[in-house]
């Protein structure tokens, strides 16, 4: 047992981690949370060093320094778009470290059966996490293809390797044999690769999140190996929150988790039949609420869908709420929005939207670049960039609100169906665009609640 002061320091560090996760779950405290986490980590590491680095102190410092020299600049210089693969890589090295720690401990110490079980788990999960993360990194970095990779008879290979692992694990526990453990490590590596290969490009972030939770579990298991409460608590926290997070992310993409991970087998067949599909990003009410709540300027572009949903009162309420938060809200009234001239005017006047807030094309388009969020409420044709860019489009030449020049676009509609003109709208597939599916009035009412709770 370590001395009390060490354990207390670890407890404080664990506390910091809990607070960090809590902070990271709310926009207001996210940054602070991250800093608290870092502080906790610093405390833990310093404590471990002071108490545990009986031998090899300088070497350890050197290794830490080397890690910092590699990690910090990498994290600093990475482009925003490449962050997911960076996270994957960091996750992978964490998993590898956990496996190594368990391996070394296994070599050094001769422990109980329970200890061996924990070791086996750490090594196996750590290895899976490591190799899986490396593959996701390669996918995202586009070093290898981002499409689901299906090995011939992939399912059987996977099952075979998994069985091998299942056989090895008890053997290790029974024999305490180091070579067998190394073999298990190799099996873990193979499993990780097999696990991630079939995942398609858009789903890779979910795989990363799951591997992240795995690493957490590996760390927790290593905590058992080392009898270290901090590792248990921190690893479990990450494991649990990572699992929930993975589920949330899958939900946000509207797909059950199993589908994402194993769907490639079935999906690939379907894809072969259908043509190339463009991807859309649909968000939750909370996403949109945050987008809006932290914007400086919002442009509401109402269309026929606002009228169909009779959402004029709801949109006015939302706008007023945003204005109370100091956000500038304008309404972009397109000359032909709706189904009769002045359709939007009638609705918005009924909802008492002040006339000064109603802007026309020419008032808005030149400054579109400084609009943080364009909230398209049941409009479609009037924001279709095809009218500007695609001479073959039947609506080519109609002036539009160029919301594709805004910093972000939120589309509220019920489906992917086109508008009056019956032409597809490229903006729906734009990376800037978040879709919020559902009846406009429902969505706005929910948004209202969500923004209030920010």
């Amino acid at each position: 047992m370590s001395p009390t002061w060490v354990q207390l320091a670890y407890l404080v560090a664990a506390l910091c981690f809990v607070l960090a996760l809590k902070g990271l779950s709310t926009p207001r405290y996210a940054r602070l949370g991250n800093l608290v986490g870092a502080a906790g980590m610093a405390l833990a590491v310093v404590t471990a060093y002071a108490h545990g680095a009986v031998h090899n102190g300088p070497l350890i410092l050197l290794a830490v320094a080397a890690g910092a020299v590699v990690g910090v600049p990498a994290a600093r210089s990475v482009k925003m778009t490449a962050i997911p693969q960076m996270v994957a890589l960091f996750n992978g090295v964490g998993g590898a470290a956990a496996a190594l720690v368990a391996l070394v401990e296994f070599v050094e110490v001769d422990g109980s059966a329970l200890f061996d079980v924990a070791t086996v788990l750490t090594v196996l999960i750590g290895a899976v996490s490591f190799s899986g993360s490396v593959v996701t990194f390669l996918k995202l970095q586009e070093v290898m293809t981002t499409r689901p990779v299906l090995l011939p008879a992939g399912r059987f290979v996977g099952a075979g390797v998994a069985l091998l692992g299942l056989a090895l694990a008890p053997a290790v526990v029974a024999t305490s044999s180091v070579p067998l453990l190394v073999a298990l490590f190799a099996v873990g590596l193979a499993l990780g690769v097999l696990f991630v290969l079939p995942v398609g490009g858009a789903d890779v972030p979910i795989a990363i999140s799951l591997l992240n939770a795995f690493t957490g579990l590996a760390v927790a298991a290593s905590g058992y190996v080392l009898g270290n409460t901090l590792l248990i608590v921190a690893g479990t926290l990450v494991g649990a929150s990572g699992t929930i997070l993975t589920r949330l992310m899958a939900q946000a993409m509207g797909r059950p988790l199993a589908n994402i991970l194993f769907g490639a087998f079935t999906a690939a067949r379907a894809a072969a039949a259908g043509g190339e599909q463009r991807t859309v990003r649909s968000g939750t009410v909370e996403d949109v609420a945050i987008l809006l709540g932290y914007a400086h300027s919002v442009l509401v572009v109402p269309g026929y869908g606002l009228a169909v949903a009779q959402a004029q009162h709801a949109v006015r309420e939302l706008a007023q709420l945003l204005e109370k938060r100091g956000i500038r809200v304008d309404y972009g009234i397109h000359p032909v929005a709706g189904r009769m001239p002045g359709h939007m005017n009638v609705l918005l006047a009924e909802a008492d939207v002040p006339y000064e807030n109603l802007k026309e094309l020419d008032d808005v388009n030149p400054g579109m670049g400084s609009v943080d969020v364009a909230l398209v409420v049941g409009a479609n044709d009037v924001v279709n960039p095809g009218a500007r860019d695609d001479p073959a489009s039947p609506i080519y030449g109609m002036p539009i609100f160029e919301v594709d020049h805004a910093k972000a676009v939120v589309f509220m509609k019920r489906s992917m169906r086109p508008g009056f003109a019956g032409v597809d709208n490229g903006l729906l597939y734009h990376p800037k665009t978040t879709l919020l599916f559902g009846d406009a009035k429902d969505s706005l009412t929910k948004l209202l609640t969500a923004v209030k709770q920010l």
Partner: protein
Amino acid sequence: MGIPAESRPAERRVAALPETVALLTGAGLAVDVQSGAGRHAHVPDAAYQAAGATVVPDHPAGAAEVLLSVQPLDPERARLLREGDITIGFLPPAAELDLVRVLVERGVTSFSLDLLPRVTRAQGMDALSSQALVAGYRAVLVAAERLPRFLPMFTTAAGTVPPAKVLVLGAGVAGLQAIATARRLGAVVEAYDVRAAAAEEVRSLGARFLELSLETQSGVYAAEQSEDFLERQRELIAERVAASDVVICTAAVPGRRAPVLVTHDMLKAMAPGSVVVDLAAESGGNCAASAPGEDVRVGEVLVHGALNLPSSLPVHASRLYARNAANLLLAMTEDGVVRPDLDDEVIGGCCLTHAGRVRHGPTGELL
């Protein structure tokens, strides 16, 4: 009691409808209705009969003991009345001194709805309010009809039409209703009144209140303003009048000439095609150019002097009026006998002549 067919020109209302006839007969009164009384309100004689009235061919003056009318009687008709007969209806004494003299002479007990105290209890009898409601609503329709522009805003493929600007002067019952109606039609409305309570009332309808640096008045009615005050008021509102597409004037001081708020010069500063509707035209006019019942052009601005606007909505104006009048009459009726209690604040308050004497102070002075 009797209900005449109104005989004044352009009067299309009637003082009782079948529903109020039923109320009155229910209270034990025998009701005579002159044939054709309800024709403008689209009520056939048969409907009155069905409600329990007797349809009589002639004006019931002299035959009925109680006469319920909208407009005051003609003085000649009033001569047919007998001592103790009762008349109920509008009767602005200052404008009808001849009639008042006849009523005094014949010993008639006359009640004027123009004099009804504006107290809470009397609200059900308050025909000034109910008819002002009609007038305020119609005033906006009249203006919208005459304006060569839209009231609401429209953003269309052929350009954007801005909302019309409407200025309402005087925010009594009619003024408030005009504000509400113009807002409904999508206009941008602002309003002014001298009463202190008016600012909040105007805002409670979603319109802008014009804050002028003028003294405000308290109380239910506005008191007469000095010419000096009006001069300052005109100066202050001139710019707002010029900026408006429609001006609706409803300012009034009971029993007095209406204050002149819009001068010829102010009209000339308005945009061509603008419209002024003057609800006060009959009592002298808030607009210097207005003539009751006429559309006067001043430059390219149209000034409509309203003449009996409530009458232009005969069905509903009659309905409200008939109910007011019936409520007043019922308040005087007990066991089928009409016996007004002149000590009652409300009934006494609107009694103009009784037993050969004028009971209304200011009118007494005028005579």
